[in-house]
């Protein structure tokens, strides 16, 4: 970008170099401002991919943050959801369990023991408020073995964009 601003007429060389430095300075300031805006913008809009265990470990950060919580629907935990009533269920990774409340109509595949990803946030009341409920496709999600970290990413991968 530096070449166009160069003025090659000898009379105004001094002027030109002053202009050039002014332009460089302005660009520098603009760049710093841009970076600040970008970084703060990203910081405000992060979506965390967490398991119930991650959520348990980060309880303090979880309230108000946007979270995609991945796990299995705990057997026997589904309540409501018919005819517009609030749908409630537990999402578990067999180590920790989170209680979820959702207002939307559940998708076709939603049932017990299926991999789900719920997007929303933790409330002070202690439950997870869900804005978006997605069911994992492929049914390849299985209960993690002892000591194994469940791969939220894999679960989300089979879910994203397909809800």
């Amino acid at each position, binding site marked *: *970008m530096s*070449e*166009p*601003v*160069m*003025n*090659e007429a000898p009379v105004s060389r001094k002027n030109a170099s002053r202009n050039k430095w002014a332009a460089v300075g302005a660009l520098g300031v603009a760049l710093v401002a*841009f970076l600040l*805006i*970008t970084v703060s*913008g*990203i910081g*405000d*809009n*992060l*979506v*965390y*991919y*967490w398991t119930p265990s991650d959520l348990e470990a980060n309880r303090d950060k979880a309230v108000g943050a*946007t979270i*995609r919580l991945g796990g299995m629907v705990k057997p026997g935990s589904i309540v409501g959801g*018919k*005819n*517009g009533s609030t749908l409630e269920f537990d999402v578990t990774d067999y180590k920790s369990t989170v209680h979820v409340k959702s207002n*939307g*109509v*559940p*998708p*076709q*595949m*939603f049932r017990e023991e299926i991999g789900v990803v719920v997007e929303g946030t933790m409330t002070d009341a202690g439950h997870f408020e869900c804005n978006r409920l997605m069911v994992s*496709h*492929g*049914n390849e999600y299985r209960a993690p073995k002892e000591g194994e970290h469940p791969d*939220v*990413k894999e679960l*989300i*991968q*089979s879910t*994203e*964009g*397909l*809800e």
Partner: protein
Amino acid sequence: MVPLIGRTLILLSLLAAASGAIIAFTAGSRKSVVGALWARRFAYTYAILISSANFLMIYALIAHDFTVGYVAQVGSRATPLWVTISSLWSSLEGSILFWGLVLGIYVFVATWTCRKHYPEHLPYAIAVWLACGAFFSFLLAGPAQPFHTVLNPPMDGPGPNPLLQNHVLMVLHPPFLYLGYVGMTIPFGLASAALLVGRLGHEFLRPLRTWLLLPWTFLTVAIVMGGWWAYEVLGWGGYWAWDPVENASFLPWLTATAALHSALVMERRSILKGWTVTLVMASFLLTVLGTFMTRSGVFNSVHSFTQSSIGPTILAFLAVSLVWSVLILAMRVDHLSAEGQIDSGKSREGAFLANNLLFVLFTFTVLIGTVFPLVVEAVKGVQMSVGSPYFNRMSVPIGVALLFLMGVGPALPWGRATKQQMIKALVPPIIGGVILLAIGFAVGARNAWTLLALFFGGYTAQVTLREMWLPLVQRMKGGAGIGQALVEGQLVRGRRRFAAYVVHAAVVVIIVSIAVSSTMQQSTEVQLMKGQSAKIGPYELTLQGVETVSEAHREGVLARLSVTKNGKPSGEMLPRMNYYAMSKDPIGTPEVRTTLTHDLYLSIMNIDERSQSVGLHLIINPMVGWIWIATGVMALGGFMATWPTKSRRNEAILRDAAQARGGEAVVES
């Protein structure tokens, strides 16, 4: 037999591309005429070999030859012919093979059309094209071999990913995307050649611009088509989610658009040469980055069906391309010296500079948001993504500013504008802005950004239309009839200019439609039993029943809904859920009814035939249809600008341009 022939063809194409690249580079550096001839022959040979491999694969798919590894993987006897053929690009190996076909065609046509000109540049360009070709043939020969032999061929295969069989747009979107992505290789090669030769004059600008414009047009269509497909198939009622893979296609589009504009300034003022070349190279690098992001599985996305272990190989290719670009830019860019200068910021070229700055800013914004989660995960091992509010917050102001610049730039003259000229050019279009703003306000737009977009949209539309018809009016004043003026002024001599404004007009429509549709959507979710109805906007929908339909390759459950609009009967809508033989999970197919002002969008969330009940997502999306229409117009404009001019006429245009420059030079001194 077929696998063996296929593997041979691929190995030969690798050989032709690799040796051709070396021969072409040597021919370029030694300025050897015979070497250049052989470089071209190798380019043609590579193109023919890789195309043959593709035709062989298409034959194997149609013949259901399950001894071919790729056919066993994605083929199925049950799928209709169009699905069978499009299986070619439905999975990783095939899509890399298809990539080769597109590259082969591009290399063939580009070499053929350039063969009589640019004797110094062409060998270098061929060297770069064939080096890229060699890389993809290498992938096909090893890590992504589509022609491996299946020893115990199955009787039938699973068919391609059901999500891709569900809509005809999936047949069209990938080829267009490839024509856009792969096509960026050609200007990359030309830009490299310009650097290596150390000259980027007027004559070489022509192929550079043409070969940038063509993939740009395809990429434009592909991006929108991807959005359209998501809209018609995924059922969440939107068309753009800032998915990393969507961003991957958008990034090179941004830099290529910037390059098209800086090339115009370069043509007029002989400046910004190094800058234009940099943008062209960045566009190519971003396509490779995009390929890496879609093919490596580092991102969670709807495109995850093509991911594989070739990620690191593509990353290595990206690294090599990046090092190559930086090196030749650093070593050679001072050879592309500027011959002109910018006199004043208050001019068309000043607006172009601002435009370029904004496009680059836009690119960085999207790039940072897309790559950030990868960096965090690599460094801290935390999985996250950047939410779409970030992208919206950043891109809306930039998009609106670009819309405004699209009005300001063309209104200003080249060179230097006087105060009177500025007022005369920039004040009247405010009328157009106010009119559109008033219309928007009257129909209920209240979002500040939407209103701003409407105002600038109207402003820019007025400028664009004026610039479109001005030459016509002038020619008619000069005594030409309207037919003659139209053909002469708009389609023959002024075609590029006219085409550019056609594209601008379409972009105005697209940006306004995006602003309106994303802020004025109405939506609701309902659970209906047979006989129950739901209301949205002027519509009332009643569930008549839930039915099952059987087709060759799938079964569907559909909800039959009768529709009334403002109390009058208005036909039926049949959103459905499809079950494919080889996949347990259903795939929803929303039903979209498009009108000129809005879409009525029905998407099934759950459906049950026994209880005759359905859970529906009802959405009214204003103006969405205009995005698809305007994109068609945009593509038309792009192709119009690309269409080759006869050389005699071209000389006249070049002469005109030279005269114009000469004239300005006189004024300057």
